[in-house]
């Protein structure tokens, strides 16, 4: 019987707790009892894998999904998906979703008085290549108000969802933009004790990704959990 190697626990302060009182929605939804620590089994070190065939090419270009081009500033968001040992993670599915340039989501719950854009759905998918790279073309999302506290505004952000190689590596996160004045006031962004950890959610303006006469580029690398050394056979 072969024992499975565990995935590493996060460094202290780099991941949010479930309860984060400044984020009001967490008060009634965050589990309150201690989580039960369990060893890794085959159930957690396996997980759904999706090959490149699951996404169509235009799924990674959010500006080409309709008959016309969406309004707003076209941008390129690109980076690598790596594990904590800097190994690239190929064939990893990324799903993104975001507001349009005016700060409005194409969602029935979003009642913000900002216009929808018939040429922008705001969702995309990509699968990483052999070096763990991905690339999305989209428009810069707008900031928008929410009701967490008085005069609350979400900084511009893009939601990211990744599976990685196992159930254990599943990650949902958000990417922010450099220099956004709303970042210090956002309870979701400021959910970690570790300031460096949260600042890694801020993408970096990048000349290599930027295309002349076309679009600014932002680099956003995503790190999925690394693994302990494989235990010996019993």
């Amino acid at each position, binding site marked *: 019987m072969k024992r499975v190697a565990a995935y590493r626990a*996060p460094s202290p302060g780099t991941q949010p707790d479930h309860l*984060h009182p400044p984020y009001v929605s967490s008060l*009634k*939804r965050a589990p309150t009892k201690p989580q*039960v620590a369990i060893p*890794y089994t085959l*159930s957690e070190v396996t997980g759904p894998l999706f090959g490149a065939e699951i996404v169509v090419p235009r799924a990674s270009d959010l500006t080409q999904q309709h008959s016309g081009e969406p309004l707003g500033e076209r941008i390129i968001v690109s980076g690598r998906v790596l594990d904590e040992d800097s190994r690239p993670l190929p064939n990893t599915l990324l799903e993104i979703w975001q507001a349009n340039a005016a700060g409005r989501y194409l969602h029935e*719950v979003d009642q913000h008085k900002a216009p929808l854009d018939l040429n922008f759905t705001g969702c995309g998918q990509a699968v990483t290549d052999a070096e763990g790279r991905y690339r999305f073309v989209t428009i810069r999302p707008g900031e928008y108000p929410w009701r967490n506290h008085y005069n609350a505004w979400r900084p511009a952000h893009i939601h990211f969802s990744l599976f990685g190689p196992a159930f254990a590596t599943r990650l949902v996160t958000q990417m922010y933009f450099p220099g956004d004045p709303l970042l210090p006031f956002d309870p*979701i962004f400021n959910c970690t004790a570790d300031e460096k950890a949260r600042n890694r959610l801020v993408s970096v303006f990048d000349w290599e990704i930027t295309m002349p006469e076309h679009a600014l580029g932002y680099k956003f690398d995503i790190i999925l959990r690394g693994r302990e050394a494989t235990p010996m056979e019993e």
Partner: protein
Amino acid sequence: MSLQATTSQTVGPYFKIGLEWLNRDNLVGKGVSGERVTIQGRVVDGDGAPVPDAIVEIWQANAHGKYDHPEDTQDKPLEPGFKGYGRIATNADGVFRFTTIKPGPVPGPDGKEQAPHLVVSVFMRGVLRRTVTRIYFPDEPRNAADFILNLVEPARRSTLIAKKAAGDPGTLEWNVVLQGPDETVFFDLGL
């Protein structure tokens, strides 16, 4: 270790835009063996109010106890019609429902087989990192010796075991209770 894992963030209220394309509420394709089950439940918050904006993800082995993943090296058959992945959004009443097969047992950390189970992630607005839990099956003799169930205090184990739905023999009921005396057991996997 040279890098640190990216910080988790909430899926927020608008995840449907980005995640709905990969929703799967029927995990069973053509020619798949095993006992069909429909599992239905509700996600409720600390006030007992339904959570209409949660998303439940399922990962499980097939009826032989084999995962469709290269790290499962057991000498057991895969079935082309069964991947083992499900994604179901809750409706306005906080209800989710999916159809699958009861998985076979898979190896556990003590070298013995685990009782048949599904591993589950639940994401929602208000929760900054995913919650992780398991669904076990009723009337399953292996439950008593299951390594993971036995790590849970006895009074709370029932939150992990689906119940037969009243008046509907093909359906199991399993709820996600986020807070309170009946709070579902959530596991610490680091994330």
